[in-house]
């Protein structure tokens, strides 16, 4: 089972992005589950999402405490929320940021780090600062077991062609850094 925790802010499309990812996994024949957690439906509030995928039925219906990867749609959350808590040894971090990896305090157990300025790409390609589809591109590039073409098709179906281009730009421009040997 692969577990991912999403961190975003209200209005960034975090929940929709994770739901599209779950749909893409199921469309490819796998099993996936996504449980969001938010309170007041207010722009800017921290939003949490718990994603699981597996080759068979997924029993747990809880939060994810020890994620194989975390996806962070807003780098200001690093100071506001324990975004790296419980990250497994060698786990991945996909982060929307304009900062360089040397400027970030990544946790010691992180094995892979994917950085991109998704907000900037979204502004250019979609005309709105909604980074979710760009981040899905970076995530599809980073995590195993996702068919990028299926996901691109689902994005086109839900949001249209601009967002599909944004997804492909995220996929193409993400810097995937291996922080550890092996």
């Amino acid at each position, binding site marked *: 089972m692969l577990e991912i925790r999403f961190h975003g802010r209200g209005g960034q499309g975090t929940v929709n992005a994770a739901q599209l990812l779950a749909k893409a996994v199921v469309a490819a024949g796998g099993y996936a589950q996504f*449980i*969001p957690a938010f309170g007041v439906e207010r722009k800017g509030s921290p939003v949490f999402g718990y994603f699981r995928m597996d080759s068979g039925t997924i029993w747990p219906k809880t939060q994810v405490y020890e994620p194989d990867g975390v996806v962070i749609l807003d780098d200001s959350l690093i100071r506001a929320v324990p975004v790296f808590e419980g990250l497994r040894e060698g786990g991945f971090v996909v982060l929307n940021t304009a900062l360089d990896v040397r400027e970030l305090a990544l946790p010691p157990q992180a094995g892979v780090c994917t950085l991109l300025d998704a907000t900037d790409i979204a502004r250019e390609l979609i005309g709105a600062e909604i980074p979710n589809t760009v981040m899905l591109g970076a995530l599809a590039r980073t995590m195993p077991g996702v068919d990028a073409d299926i996901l691109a098709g689902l994005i086109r179906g839900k949001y249209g062609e601009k967002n599909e281009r944004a997804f492909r730009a995220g996929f193409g421009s993400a810097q995937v850094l291996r922080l550890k040997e092996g």
Partner: protein
Amino acid sequence: MPFRMFDGNGAAVEAIRMARPGVIAAYPITPQSSIAEKLSDCVANGQIDAEYIRVESEHSAMSVCVGACLTGVRVATATSSVGLALMHEVCGVTSGCRLPVVMPVVNRSLVAPWSLWCDHQDTMAERDTGWLQFYCGTVQEVLDLTLCAYRISEHQDVLTPSMVCLDGFFLSHSMQKVSAPTDEEAWDFVGPYVRRNMYIDPTDVMFVNDLCPTSEYTEMRYQQKVGFERAADVAREVFDEYGRRFGRRPCTVEKYLLDDADIALVTMGSMSGTAKFAVNELRRQGVKAGLLRICMFRPFPAGEIREALKNVPVVGVVDRSAGLGAAQPPAATEVSAALRGAGCRVFSFVGGLAGRDISDGAFKGLYSELLDVFEGQAQSVNTWFDLKGDPMALREVDIIC
């Protein structure tokens, strides 16, 4: 059957759409809101041929449903938490008039303190209102049990409304893989609504919910009791038929690794999948742990529960309700009564309130407490689990959300 992706609220709307209601009245409330919104969309875009009556409260929503149902159409509504509490009075009218309304209830905590998140205190407060209650374990079950609920509630020997309960966020907003019948298959199973018992018809005038003398009230209630007794059998028949048609048989109770169990937990709702995951891990370590999930809480399947648990020496019941002032909280009280004289030791656990996650680690802790009792190292358990810090020190809300 092709797989589709729904969250719990989406699955509830899909089942309602397939049952072709003629009148819909729903008032939005977190985390039910997307049911009210999607039903409205379905009416606007022609997917449901119904009149959507906008109301100012849940009390009015159920009142509209009562009136509309009496004219002889299937109706739809849904609610949650304080919305259900506001509806309470009219819920009694619905069941007392024997109107077979099927209502998804998205489980959410009651106030105060204010909360938006999942526990079972809202529907447990309605457990004696004369409604059938089903608690879903998965999004798949939201679809399956809602479709079955129409058949059970509307059966001529039952005529009792149903609450199909789904955990707020853990199911309502959880996107999962769901197998769904086609519209034709679903309609062939559910069938058209047939008015029975009480109705409003100018050619056949009758009194509805007028003042009932003492000399007749008890008999009216007795009829409801008989309806509940029949509901237990009808539910099993409907589940069998659903299983034959669609390959998945919903259950009144789900037994998991109980035959040789030394210790077992009783759960309801979405926590049950996590409990099963914990049981699997404990079994790998050689601990004979088992699980019983109660899916149908009203009518309470006491006989089946007794049969399933009578040989398990130590049983713990997890309530997602506080059960303030009671000998035990609701599920534990009923399970204890079902097991009276069976020789099991029954303990109560309270947790998962207001969305507090019941993790697999929490379940392992509960099983560990039961194991201590089984091995004679403890006489009892700590009923309230996952309490944080000094609970008596809190007064006003400390963490702004």
